[in-house]
């Protein structure tokens, strides 16, 4: 589908060229105009309903799920994630923890729970709606990932290592696109993870409604999709790889005020 858009016919239709400076101003205007109206707010409503709904083979809601602040406490929980959970003996981000609760509390089978982990034009994703609702309960709070447990520290280090690791058919690392200042891919600005202002702006706005996907995406999808473009095998949802990267990025954005769902191209 994306490839079809990229046909050579397109540039022929684009002549005459617009000056580079006005291009960036107009793209900025586009982003500003779409950001004013964020359909992602509807995912928050859907997510709340799903959260309270009795589901799974055990027919219970997610209200007793412990996101790190105690069972059922959602306020501020997302701001502290990823973190170590003793009951699973691993570091989990919000999505990994949500999946864990769906399996342990509600009795979902692993594969069944992940069947609609990413929504598309044909079906909506329960996980995307639930994640939006859970994350929104930390709105206006600063990201506060603490790295107290040894496994949290290790996750951060692993995330940093992967971030700079060049791999696969394109020789890319995450850093190939996200460690330099003022670069863009096509017309898309690339955030610089080593710039505090930029990493703050990015990390405080996930989950985000993605205009090009017509759905809210979580960081799990963002990391999955980057890996896919790097020609890596598909990384698994909530896996150590993704949680480590998520930890590295979240710690880098500590202090940034959460405002979700964000809005992205």
């Amino acid at each position: 589908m994306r490839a079809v858009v990229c046909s050579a016919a397109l540039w022929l239709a684009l002549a005459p060229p617009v000056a580079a400076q006005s291009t960036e101003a107009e793209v900025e205007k586009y982003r500003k105009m779409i950001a004013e109206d964020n359909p992602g707010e509807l995912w928050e409503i859907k997510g709340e309903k799903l959260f309270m709904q009795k589901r799974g083979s055990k027919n219970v809601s997610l209200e007793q799920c412990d996101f790190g602040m105690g069972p059922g406490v959602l306020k501020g929980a997302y701001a502290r994630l990823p973190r170590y959970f003793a009951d699973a003996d691993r570091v989990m981000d919000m999505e990994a923890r949500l999946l864990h609760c769906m399996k342990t509390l509600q009795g979902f089978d692993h594969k069944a729970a992940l069947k609609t982990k990413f929504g598309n034009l044909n079906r909506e994703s329960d996980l995307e709606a639930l994640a939006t609702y859970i994350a929104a309960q930390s709105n206006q709070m600063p990201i506060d990932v603490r790295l107290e447990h040894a496994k949290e520290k290790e996750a951060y280090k692993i995330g940093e290592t992967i971030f700079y690791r060049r791999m696969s058919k394109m020789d890319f690392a995450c850093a190939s696109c996200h460690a330099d200042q003022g670069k863009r891919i096509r017309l898309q600005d690339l955030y610089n993870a080593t710039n505090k202002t930029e990493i703050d702006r990015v990390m405080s706005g996930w989950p985000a409604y993605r205009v090009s996907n017509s759905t809210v995406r979580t960081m799990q999808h963002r990391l999955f999709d980057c890996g896919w473009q790097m020609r890596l095998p598909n990384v698994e949802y909530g896996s150590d790889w993704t949680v480590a990267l998520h930890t590295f990025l979240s710690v880098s954005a500590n202090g940034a005020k959460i405002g979700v769902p964000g809005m992205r191209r």
Partner: protein
Amino acid sequence: MKTKHIVLQGVGAVLLAACASAPEPVVTEATIQRVVQSSFSQIEYQYPPEVVARTNQDEGQKMCTAVRNEVAKIPPAQLDAFVGKSMKEIKYPAGGELMGDWKQGENIAQSGYGMRFGEGADDPKRPNGGNCYACHQVAPQEIAFGTIGPSLLGYGKHRGASAAMQKFVYDKVYNAWVTFPCSNMPRFGHHGFLTTEQITHVVALLLDPASPVNK
């Protein structure tokens, strides 16, 4: 580059201060392999062995990652050996003509297709693309170009299209690291991402006087 490191060190310093009692965890290649095992575990997806192997690093990727792409930090002997070996590995099209068709080159520059696996997998029967516009300005008509790499507008205008120039561009696209080790640019020929014939079309897009790049 400098600023980047200062910022990172800053983050690191804060971390160290916060957890001064515990030793810094050491992440080795074995740690990464353990994470790969658990994160690409084939529960959700099944991969052919070639795809799983993409998480491993080849010699060049290892070399560049170790110094975070700061070539000056690579021992000169290692660098020379790497570049020499990479040069020798470059394959040329049968017949030896390096200047192809710029129009096909433009299609290759526009397309980012190929070798993506799993959800929304690419059809291996369709040609891969070089996705040049993702990072470079190329022909002036395309306004949606990236800035990770330098602008290539008018690339062949002053450089000409001599045999030496054609070979230089061909080699660069085939293996960008022979001219600039550890640059962000993928090694398209080295990884078999673009065919030798496709690379000649990209050469033409950049060097052919008839190409819009040089108008």
